[in-house]
């Protein structure tokens, strides 16, 4: 797949906040439809696409999940020429002052997030970062026009356009986890023309950033034999602790911990080594903070794996990622899917 960067840039140029993923879902559906046998939207808005295997019915199935929803903001009220806001997903209020945003009102409006001068803030917030509840959006419109176009509940997304840096680096908002979605697209392309024993479900999940609602319900509906969450992970960067981060451009991370089935980890480790795809092991002592957390306990339970793509400045509008890492992740997934034989699960043991 040669057009990964344009695909990823397109993915991060459309909105699709948690719970309101329609714009990005449409784009992903267009990209995936020609590459899959069956595609549909779940009741909670996840996109389910199937590459059907050729094994005898009932076949085992693998679910690959990357979440398509974005963090952002939502209008809570109007005050003259200004909007009050709160978060959708985990937003760091410290990065907001001065950010350009798009307000999805009766029409799309451009706005900037502003921090009032300290004398206009509550006494307990006159020092330090201004709390989200005290930040405002200025659209440049007068109060009357604003009230006509915006109402509480309207969504606000980051307006930072994607920028390519020197080399293979891409900067933009929502690379968490549209980079994971792009890795799935890459995987689908790589699997074109290849025969698969297993059914492979490609799932772009909804609402991960809020409460994993997409993964919880898609896992229940699709009942996969195995599930892999592809999400971003922390890349080493100025200001980030070295022991919690992984180098950019040096391959994906393979998760290890209670949220990951040890046999799956081993299978990926061996595969990566065989293919000479560089990787790092990421120890995840508790909650992986990914869709795998929900998928693992869907219905009767699912063995899960977490694959991370290192990303700098997570949950800011200037997330940075190496497109090489996205490609490596997609390739690793494709090779894993293609390598699955019908008796794969029977080869596992808990007591290795």
């Amino acid at each position, binding site marked *: 797949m040669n057009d990964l960067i344009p695909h990823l840039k397109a993915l991060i140029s459309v909105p699709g906040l948690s719970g309101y993923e329609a714009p990005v879902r449409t784009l992903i559906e267009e990209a995936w439809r020609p590459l899959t046998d069956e595609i549909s939207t779940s009741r909670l808005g996840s996109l389910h696409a199937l590459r059907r295997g050729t094994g005898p019915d009932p076949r085992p199935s693998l679910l690959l999940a990357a979440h398509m929803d974005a963090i952002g903001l939502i209008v809570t009220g109007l*005050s003259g020429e200004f909007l009050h806001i709160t978060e959708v997903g985990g937003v760091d209020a410290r*990065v907001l002052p*001065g950010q350009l945003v798009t307000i999805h009102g009766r029409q799309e409006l451009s706005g900037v997030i502003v921090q009032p001068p300290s004398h206009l803030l509550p006494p307990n917030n006159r020092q330090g*970062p201004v709390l989200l509840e*005290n930040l405002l959006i200025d659209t440049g419109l007068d109060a009357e026009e604003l009230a006509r176009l915006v109402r509480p509940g309207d969504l606000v997304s980051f307006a930072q356009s994607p920028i390519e*840096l020197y080399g293979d680096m891409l900067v933009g908002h929502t690379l968490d986890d549209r980079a994971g979605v792009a890795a799935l697209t890459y995987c689908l392309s790589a699997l074109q023309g290849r025969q698969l024993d297993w059914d492979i479900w490609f799932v772009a999940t909804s609402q991960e950033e809020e409460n994993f609602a997409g993964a919880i319900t898609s896992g229940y509906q699709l009942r996969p034999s195995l599930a892999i969450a592809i999400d971003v992970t922390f890349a080493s960067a*100025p200001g980030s602790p070295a022991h919690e981060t992984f180098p950019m451009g040096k391959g994906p991370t393979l998760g290890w911990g209670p949220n990951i089935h040890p046999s799956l980890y081993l299978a990926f480790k061996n595969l990566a080594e065989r293919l000479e795809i560089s990787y790092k092991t990421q120890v995840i002592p508790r909650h992986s903070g990914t869709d795998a957390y929900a998928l693992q306990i869907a219905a009767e339970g699912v063995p899960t794996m977490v694959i991370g793509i290192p990303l*700098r400045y*997570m949950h800011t509008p200037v997330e940075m990622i190496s497109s090489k890492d996205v490609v490596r992740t997609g390739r690793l997934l494709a090779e894993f899917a293609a390598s699955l034989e019908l008796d794969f699960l029977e080869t596992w043991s808990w007591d290795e």
Partner: protein
Amino acid sequence: MHTTNESNQTPQVGAGQTSLLERLCNASAVSGDEHEVRQIVIQELQPYAQAIKIDSLGNVLVTREGRGTNRLRVMVAAHMDEAGFILTNDEDDGIYRFEVVGGMDVRFLLGKLVWVGRSHTPGVIGAKPVHLLTSEEKKKTITLDSLRIDLGPGNGNQSKIGERAVFATPFIHLGNSLRARALDNRLGVATLIELVKHPPDNIDLLAAFTVQEEVGTRGASIAGYSLNPDLAFVLDCTSAYDLPAWDDSENSQYNTQLGAGPAIHIAHKPSLSDPRLVRHLEQTAKVENIPYQIRQPGSVSTDTGTIHKQRSGIPSVTVSVPGRYLHSPASLCRLSDWQFTLALIHAALARLTPQVLATER
């Protein structure tokens, strides 16, 4: 020399002027490196001026002489520079330590795209992910010391220490407003360019596009000395803090308000405006039916801070376009405030006579 009738017309803010403002705002001119804006100023004024002088600090000085006798020599100054960043250390692999040039709230820096150098190479000022923050870190303002400009690994030292950087914010029209980086003071620059293109002929117009205002009004000081005018007007952009208070109580410290017209400065910390010039501006506004506001006295200086002290003293006053969120990634002003500012300053200059200075101070 370009001599057309348009010189005598009253200048107005229209599509041509806003598109010039857009070019000026998208140019980068951190104090000490005003090159990009200076080039636009020179290019714009070349057809209108006999001589364009660049002085020892980089101020652009343009004189347009009027006609008749008893002409006042009137300096009009607008600073070209803006607050921004300068790369100070190369920490390898595209990571640079930097300093702030001019006044900037460090809380604006996190998570922004910047342009580095005259090539406008994109880079980012990132932030430690919210997921990894301690609750203490969330409550504290980040220190500049812990921030870096990141041009991406493999940048191959395309940029060098000493290069300047600015927020990468595009210019945009929003309803009746304009939003851009560095409206402070490209609004003043654009206004002064219009005055030089259409100077009133009752005065000698001594235009000074100054440098290094944001680091101590340094350019204006030598420009004031060398031009040695009878009086000076400064065109700037001043803060509007006209936001709602958290408890909806009345905001009594707004400095200026958007939509209320040009702001006439009466007093800042380092200078008091000449009352005769303040009166002259107010009378002009009333006669010409131009809305105006008095900027709330106090706070920071403009170029008048150093101009008024040159040689044996220069009567001076500042007129500003009110703007919100100055020295941040995106400032915002009303188009009408700019239109009225240009109208007011032009009319005030056209009505100037030596009599104005002859009255009691």
